[in-house]
């Protein structure tokens, strides 16, 4: 060894030094000679280093990333300073992305099932064969005049891919392009639609808000765009002259509640009452934005019916009559004084904003969840926080969302007119998607003959997902595009793995600031495995099918699609590749009542009610939809006349499954910052290792319990327990969490996989298996928070 003193030599020397002063002296001399301060230290690094921009896809945020490629290997991701969502930041999921790229359990190439469904026996096939098989299947369905028997379920697709997938299915002739929205954001989107007339998640101007009231939203760790919320939060705290206040309303404190100024542990499922109670106090105190509610909204005051024969009760008198602080306190468990104070703070700290969650309490299995979201959104309108600084923004997108007209094709036209397998628009009149209900549709006899799964793992991620295993038995042809053999892909006939987000072209619209923008994914290294992006694959299928389907997709590659269409938007491809992001920053507010206001901000997406720029406290859109329903329909949907006007947001008590006597706890399946909402993240060892940071658990599940409740059952931290609902039971360990309502228990999401890979499999439990699999009858939303459980020692 050339080193003057390596560790081994030192040890040898040290051993001989015992009893030998000469040796000791030489040892000391050596130590001095090799003083690191005096040694010439060289920096070794890669020979060839590159930085490539892209967009992360380990949660829905879509943060810009820059990837360091050293000698052809991806060694590190950083947040892209150019991207507005994260401006250089990156959360642990994004940081762990190299474990996704180099994951040992990725599907190596296209595979065809050879054994029984789910037997795990596969053979590889070529991409040409795969294209041929899929094209043939779809062509056969079209020839038989039944293209609607093909369906595509998809999860995350926030760029052009979303409409690309829909266009593909429409060109084939199927109305069945089914988004995962009904498991998360559809409730908030629908509420915004029924009040503001825009079917989308609102964006929130946290940066300029003085007071943020977050309803059931895990604002900072699990919202629909977590990093955007964190960025806004951080700025509101210490980035400007005055520090904004944050209040978290949630049965569980979580990290968001811990970081907030105030945590309101509300009775689960009563958010509507609290929002309306706050509105009550604000209205009574005369702290409303009078100009807004009287000139730019509908149904705040009582109004005459069409024939002018009687007055219909408006929001104001309805709320004043029914939601005084004492009544609301009874319902929500929040002290009346607190309600009055919060209302005063909210109205007195303008601009203030009430934030809707991506999921959580809104998905409580009854139409009350929808009303809750409407009530929260109306709270913004009461104080005029619609489209103004510090309030609600209308999210704009690049115009590339609109595609050229599809070619005229009678087969497709007829197919697209068919009912959907998920019952959206039929069984569920308000639903646009009912992802979890696809299983019900199939089991009820919808003759699905081909099912495509893109970033979709319904067997795992839908409440009562096991129904999909049964439903899959009735579908003769199932294709999964998953990069991992997840719970759903293992039942597929073809697994056609897509490259990871670091190996493919894709765009991702920037959501959360209101203004339009797009981030670009691109291959930072050559794809490692025999993968093909779903866009490229479907373009090849379209070409193979010929006729009108091919005509609808004249592009050779998905990269070509992006390149051509983004250029139409004015985005220069080379610049986009270099920066990874293109946007028109700076949100432009609309003057109330102006043309821009009417065309873009309030009411422009209404399908039935007037697009007149009025914000609906009294939902005319809902009224139009409900009017079309027959008496029997209403009965089936549980919309029987209870004396309340169904078009006003109101509190509807949650109908829990499981009697309180037997099942004392409401089960809440929580999303973690670490494991996030996407299946693949569960197979990243680093995220497994840090997943239970808040409760000192690693590589496992747990159930959170209030200490007092636990002690009453003689349960201590770490005890093994069964958590049992009327739908099943799971065994896991107890964690005592003081900052939790005594009547609620939480199980974190994204553990308990039975497939995916070595790190995810057989680790912890999947809380969703305990949940009520019934969809909400009117909106088609999955029911995440209306199941009770009991907890007992295992």
């Amino acid at each position, binding site marked *: 060894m050339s*080193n003057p003193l390596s560790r081994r030599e030192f040890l040898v020397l040290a051993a001989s030094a015992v009893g030998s002063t000469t040796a000791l002296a030489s040892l000391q001399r050596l130590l001095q000679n090799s003083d690191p301060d005096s040694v010439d230290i060289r920096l070794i690094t*890669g020979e060839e280093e590159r930085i490539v921009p892209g967009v992360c896809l380990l949660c829905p945020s879509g943060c810009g990333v820059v990837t360091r490629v050293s000698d052809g290997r991806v060694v590190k991701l950083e947040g892209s300073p150019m991207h507005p969502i994260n401006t250089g930041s990156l959360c642990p999921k994004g940081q762990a992305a190299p474990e996704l790229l180099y994951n040992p359990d990725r599907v190596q190439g296209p595979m065809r099932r050879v054994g029984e469904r789910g037997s795990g026996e596969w053979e590889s096939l070529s991409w040409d064969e795969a294209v041929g098989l899929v094209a043939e299947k779809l062509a056969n369905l079209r020839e038989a005049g039944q293209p609607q028997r093909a369906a595509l379920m998809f999860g995350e697709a926030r760029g052009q891919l979303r409409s690309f997938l829909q266009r593909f299915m429409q060109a084939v002739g199927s109305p069945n392009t089914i988004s995962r929205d009904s498991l998360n954001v559809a409730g908030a989107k629908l509420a915004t639609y029924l009040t503001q007339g825009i079917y989308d998640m609102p964006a929130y101007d946290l940066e300029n808000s003085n007071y943020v009231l977050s309803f059931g939203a895990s604002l900072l760790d699990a919202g629909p765009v977590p990093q955007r919320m964190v960025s806004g*939060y951080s700025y509101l705290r210490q980035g400007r002259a005055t520090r904004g206040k944050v209040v978290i309303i949630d049965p569980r404190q979580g990290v968001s509640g811990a970081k907030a100024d105030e945590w309101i542990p509300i009775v689960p499922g009563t958010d509507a009452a609290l929002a309306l109670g706050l509105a009550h106090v604000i209205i009574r105190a005369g702290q409303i934005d009078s100009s807004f509610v009287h000139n730019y909204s509908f149904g705040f005051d009582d109004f005459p019916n069409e024939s002018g024969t009687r007055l219909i009760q408006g929001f104001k008198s309805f709320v004043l009559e029914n939601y005084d602080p004492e009544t609301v306190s009874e319902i929500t468990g929040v002290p009346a004084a607190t309600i009055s104070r919060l209302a005063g703070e909210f109205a007195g700290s303008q601009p203030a904003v009430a934030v809707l969650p991506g999921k959580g309490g809104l998905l409580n299995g009854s139409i009350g969840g929808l009303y809750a979201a409407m009530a929260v959104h109306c709270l913004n309108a009461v104080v005029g926080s619609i489209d103004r600084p510090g309030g609600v923004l209308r999210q704009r997108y690049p115009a590339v969302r609109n595609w050229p007209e599809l070619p005229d094709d009678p087969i497709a036209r007829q197919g697209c007119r068919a009912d959907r397998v998920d019952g959206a628009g039929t069984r569920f009149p308000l639903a646009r998607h009912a992802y979890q209900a696809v299983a019900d549709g199939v089991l009820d006899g919808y003759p699905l003959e081909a099912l495509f799964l893109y970033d979709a793992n319904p067997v795992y991620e839908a409440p009562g997902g096991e129904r999909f295993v049964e439903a899959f038995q009735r579908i003769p042809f199932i294709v999964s595009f998953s990069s991992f053999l997840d719970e759903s892909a293992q039942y597929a006939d073809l697994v056609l793995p897509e490259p990871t987000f670091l190996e493919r072209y894709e765009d991702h619209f920037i959501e959360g600031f209101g203004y339009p923008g797009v981030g670009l994914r691109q291959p930072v290294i050559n794809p490692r495995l025999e993968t093909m992006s779903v866009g490229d694959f479907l373009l090849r299928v379209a070409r193979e099918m010929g006729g009108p389907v091919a005509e609808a997709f004249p592009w050779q590659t998905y990269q070509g699609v992006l390149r051509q269409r983004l250029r139409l938007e004015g985005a220069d491809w080379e610049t986009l590749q270099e920066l990874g992001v293109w946007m028109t920053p700076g949100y432009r507010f609309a003057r109330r009542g102006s043309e821009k206001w009417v065309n873009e901000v309030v009411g422009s997406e209404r399908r039935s009610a007037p697009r007149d720029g009025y914000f609906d406290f009294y939902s005319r859109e809902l009224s139009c939809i409900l009017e079309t329903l027959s008496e029997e329909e209403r009965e089936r949907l549980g919309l029987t006349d209870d004396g309340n006007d169904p078009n006003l947001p109101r509190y509807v008590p949650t109908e829990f499954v499981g009697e309180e006597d037997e099942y004392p706890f409401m089960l809440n399946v929580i999303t973690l910052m670490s494991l996030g909402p996407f299946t693949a993240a569960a197979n990243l*060892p680093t995220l497994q290792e840090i997943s239970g940071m808040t409760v000192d658990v690693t590589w496992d599940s747990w159930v959170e319990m209030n200490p007092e409740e636990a002690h009453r059952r003689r349960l201590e931290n770490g005890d093994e327990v069964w958590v049992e609902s009327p739908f099943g039971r799971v065994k896991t360990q107890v964690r005592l969490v003081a900052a939790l309502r005594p009547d609620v228990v939480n199980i974190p999401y994204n553990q308990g996989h039975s497939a995916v890979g070595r790190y995810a499999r057989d680790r912890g439990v999947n809380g969703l298996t305990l949940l009520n699999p019934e969809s909400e009858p009117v909106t088609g939303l999955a029911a995440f928070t209306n199941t009770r459980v009991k907890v007992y020692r295992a």
Partner: protein
Amino acid sequence: MARWAMVIDLDKCVACQGCSIACRFENNTPAVKPSEALKGRAIRWNDVFPIPINPEEEESEEYPNVKTRYLTRPCMHCANPPCIKVCPVRATYKDEEGLVRQNYDRCIGCRFCTVACPYGVRYFNWHKPEWDGELAEANNPDRLEGQGVLEGPAVRPLGVVEKCTFCIHRLHKARARAEAEGRELRSEDYIPACVETCTGKARFFGDLDDPESIVSQFEQSPRAFRLLEDVGTHPKVIYLREG
């Protein structure tokens, strides 16, 4: 000569653990097996964890008046570091810019330093660092080498102690770049991975000897405090209280 320091604003920190994992991929600390993680042998130089409330100063923990607090903890790079005093082989030492460094080539794994450190930020390699399959492809190739010196992200041998280096290799890179561009090193040239990734923009880094630097300014903040200020270690990681 610079005196590098870090400021962590707990009012902006959202306990996301981004720092922890940015550090992992920058400095090559692999995930350990679940059984080892359970024993607390996972190595993350910058860990994030909930801290109990001090009952002497605050209300007792009765629902609903409970507030969980989170702390993120790198090496404090103390001005008076106890770890270097107990090291029998000068494997850990403080350099002239105040960075407390760790030379894996000299470390004999006696773990005196892990005991001496009052902050618990020194980690022992109970196992040879290992990555499954091709996960090692993502290893950062950066390292510092010299005669008898091995530092930075260099993959550690079994049985040595390691810790946060304030991403010392990034300092060397920044210096090389400044030199190549024929200019002085600027404070903003050198940013550790955790500071760069921080989702809440809660971390700041700079030179305490420069009165204009952001860290010098924050040091004056009424919200500023250091961990275990009374034990005389003089940490160069400065926290800012919530509120």
